[in-house]
């Protein structure tokens, strides 16, 4: 009987079982897994079950960065397993709390290992290098297979007609057995994967052999087939049974991926006149969150202010986070502090808010429009699209040559990048018309990030060109609209059972802070999403750029830094 120890590492596949863009269907102790590699090379070992409706994820599509279920198209990100896309809700940045159930996974010695308990110490078994022989699933339990290995005979040079001598057997671990041919130079290492109660996958690596690899592989395939035939012709000692415990009960309670972490500045570069980039690494051993294109970080600057910076990372960059920072001439202290106070080695506190500017899989060709430092999220998108082999255009509007940032990354993108240098407002309008008009626009999606007036121009030009509002996505730096003084209203806090008035001219956030209610805030312009607050009831007046139209219409949330009630009573879930 194969018994699971949740605190051990088990081989679940060979490295070559998970080639790019494939989903390997694996089995361990009767549990099924979808094992897949992203284009950055990282391997995921997930329960073979879509959290939505339970279809096997091994039937799904490995897009290179995500796994998409074949049934309703729910899509889960490599690494975190977070649901990134639900086709029925294409506009939502966080469409569902569903998360693929993942095991800890590492690759070593040509095998993919996994452990149910993520705290399990790294696997120490050294298989060593050698010739990969064909793995064989055998319909018997590991103990039966292990016993049969004592009688395995082979010729060190793979000669089928030679009379093989007995090999010396050594048990390295209960699952790893080594057979040394006479002389000891040629060693055959067997690895037993307990696939199910009645099924074992026998892996084998041959070290030290010098004969033709094809002959050696055929020699061992024939002998392992014979071993299997002999085993399967006997009565099984163990009946085939399904696992008694559902898999999720074996795994520790899954916490949502860590949203707050500290990081250290690995390097600082001057990217262009007024723009620096920082490369950030985790300050401790905890892995960095995987940030999808369009995602940003909330960073606490050395001055204590919290600021948002879009990540510039390409899809393969998992070990560090790269951000770009422009020194704002009218800085309120955030960008000045990042430029003046941050050096290599500086520790910074970071958190990951939800991605409000994701690449939406739509089959439509993305047109990316960047203005100035707005290049950062679009560069991340462009690199992801290039890695996936999808067509796109990146238009980068910038004041002059000396202000062009991230030149090396742009160079890799080749012809897809168009620079628009030193254009005034009228010329920018003309350029945008050239980009957005006179094409079959139902086949395009526009993503734009840059200064407010430029985004306004993109919005009106796209609308005039016939691109639907749903196909134009914006990321704002700041909200240039003057906040209206608004009507006075009453606030009732449902959970803390308090009530107070907010006069005209005071923001809801100011009133909350005045009352000593701790609500996290950052931009105070309705852009960053930090002060997101849930609403129980009330007639809302939204002035932010953060919430989607659907979220605003729901009446269930608001951004108190700029938004308020139209008089009456506002009941908050605080």
């Amino acid at each position, binding site marked *: 009987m194969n018994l699971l120890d949740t605190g051990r590492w088990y081989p679940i596949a060979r490295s070559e079982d998970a080639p790019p*863009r494939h989903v390997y269907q694996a089995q361990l102790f009767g549990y*099924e897994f979808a094992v897949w590699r992203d*284009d950055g090379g990282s391997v995921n070992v997930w329960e073979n079950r879509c959290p939505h409706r339970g279809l096997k994820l091994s039937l799904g*599509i490995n897009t290179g960065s995500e796994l998409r279920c074949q049934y309703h198209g729910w899509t889960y990100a490599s690494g975190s397993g977070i649901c990134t896309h639900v086709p029925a809700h294409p506009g939502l940045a966080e469409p569902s709390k569903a998360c693929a159930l993942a095991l800890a996974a590492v690759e070593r010695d040509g095998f993919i290992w996994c452990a149910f308990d993520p705290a399990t110490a790294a696997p120490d078994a050294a298989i060593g290098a050698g010739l990969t022989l064909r793995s064989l699933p055998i319909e018997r339990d590991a103990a039966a297979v292990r016993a049969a290995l004592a009688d395995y005979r082979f010729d060190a040079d793979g000669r089928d007609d030679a009379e093989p001598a007995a090999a010396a057997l050594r048990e390295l671990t209960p699952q790893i057995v080594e057979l040394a041919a006479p002389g000891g130079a040629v060693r055959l290492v067997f690895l037993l994967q307990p696939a199910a109660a009645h099924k074992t996958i026998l892996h084998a690596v041959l070290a030290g052999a010098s004969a033709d690899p*094809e002959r050696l592989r*055929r020699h061992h395939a024939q002998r392992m087939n014979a071993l299997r035939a002999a085993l399967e012709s006997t009565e099984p000692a163990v009946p085939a049974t399904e696992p008694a415990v559902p898999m999720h009960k074996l795994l520790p309670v899954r916490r949502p991926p860590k949203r707050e972490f500290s990081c250290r500045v690995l390097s600082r570069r001057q990217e262009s006149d007024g723009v620096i980039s920082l490369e950030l690494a985790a300050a401790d051993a905890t892995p960095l969150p995987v940030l999808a294109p369009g995602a940003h970080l909330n960073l606490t600057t050395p001055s204590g202010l919290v600021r948002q910076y879009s990540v510039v990372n390409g899809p393969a960059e998992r070990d560090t986070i790269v951000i770009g920072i422009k020194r704002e001439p009218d800085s309120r202290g955030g960008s000045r502090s990042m430029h003046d106070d941050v050096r290599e080695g500086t520790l910074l506190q970071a958190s990951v808010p939800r991605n409000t500017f994701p690449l939406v899989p739509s089959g439509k060709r993305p047109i990316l429009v960047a203005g100035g430092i707005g290049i950062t999220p679009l560069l991340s998108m462009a690199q992801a699209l290039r890695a996936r*082999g999808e067509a796109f255009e990146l238009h980068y509007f910038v004041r002059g040559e000396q202000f062009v940032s991230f030149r090396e990354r742009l160079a890799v993108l*080749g*012809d*897809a990048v168009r620079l628009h240098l030193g254009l005034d407002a009228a010329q920018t309008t003309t350029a945008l018309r050239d980009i957005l008009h006179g094409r079959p626009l139902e086949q395009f999606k526009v993503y734009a990030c840059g200064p407010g007036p430029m985004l306004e121009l993109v919005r009106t030009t796209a609308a005039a060109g016939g691109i639907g509002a749903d196909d134009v996505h914006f990321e704002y730096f700041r909200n240039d609209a003057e906040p209206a003084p608004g009507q006075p209203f009453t606030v009732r806090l449902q959970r803390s059972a308090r009530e107070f008035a907010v006069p005209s001219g005071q923001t809801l956030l100011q009133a909350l802070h005045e009352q000593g209610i701790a609500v996290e805030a950052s931009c105070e312009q309705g852009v960053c999403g930090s002060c997101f607050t849930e609403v129980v009831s009330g007639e809302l007046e939204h002035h932010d750029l953060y919430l989607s139209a659907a979220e605003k219409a729901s009446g269930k949330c608001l951004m108190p830094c700029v938004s308020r009630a139209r008089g009456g009573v506002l009941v908050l879930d605080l």
Partner: protein
Amino acid sequence: MITLYDYELSGNCYKVRLLLHILGLSYQTEDIEFFPSRQHKSEAFLRVNPLGQLPALRDGDLLLRDAQAILVYLASRYDTSGRWYPLDQPEMLGKINMWLAFADGLTGSISAARLHDLFFFDFDADQCRARAHQLLRILDEHLWFEESTGGSWLCGGDAPTIADLACFPYVMLADEGGISLIDYPAVRRWTDRVKRIPGFIVMAGIFPVAPALETAPRTESALPS
């Protein structure tokens, strides 16, 4: 005009549609409902194929039955690349016909188990499944050794042949016959490759796959400069 006597849910009809699409041939279909009305046993259809089996194909005066025979005919007649059934390569023709016969074995095992599960045919499903697993073990070992020497396809060479198309449908539909492919990883990788053949089409139960990573980025620029 080519006419295919077709049933949407038949893997053997699908393999003919697959080759027609890959070769870019225009054709029309005459739908013969296999289940529940059993039109393939109707008097009208027995005049097309006295064996009462799908598919059948009419091209001008020629009337053919048997999916494998139809693939041979279409490739020999219409494939201008000469790769799907290379008439000038006797070794390949031998191998292709070996695997065409193997495809018939898949019909007799996987397809039979599927007809039992899906359409309530009175077959010994356990026996069909056991036979299917025997065949899949042979197929997996063959494909594993092809891969180990850099090959991608059933008959070696650097391009797929009609043998790949003939074996593909019922391998892919095995799940519907209660036969899991979990123990045949080389077979599953091969099905990904078949799905990436230009002109590939799906049928109910056979899903598309992501494009290969090697695809060159399509970053053509269609912009005014």
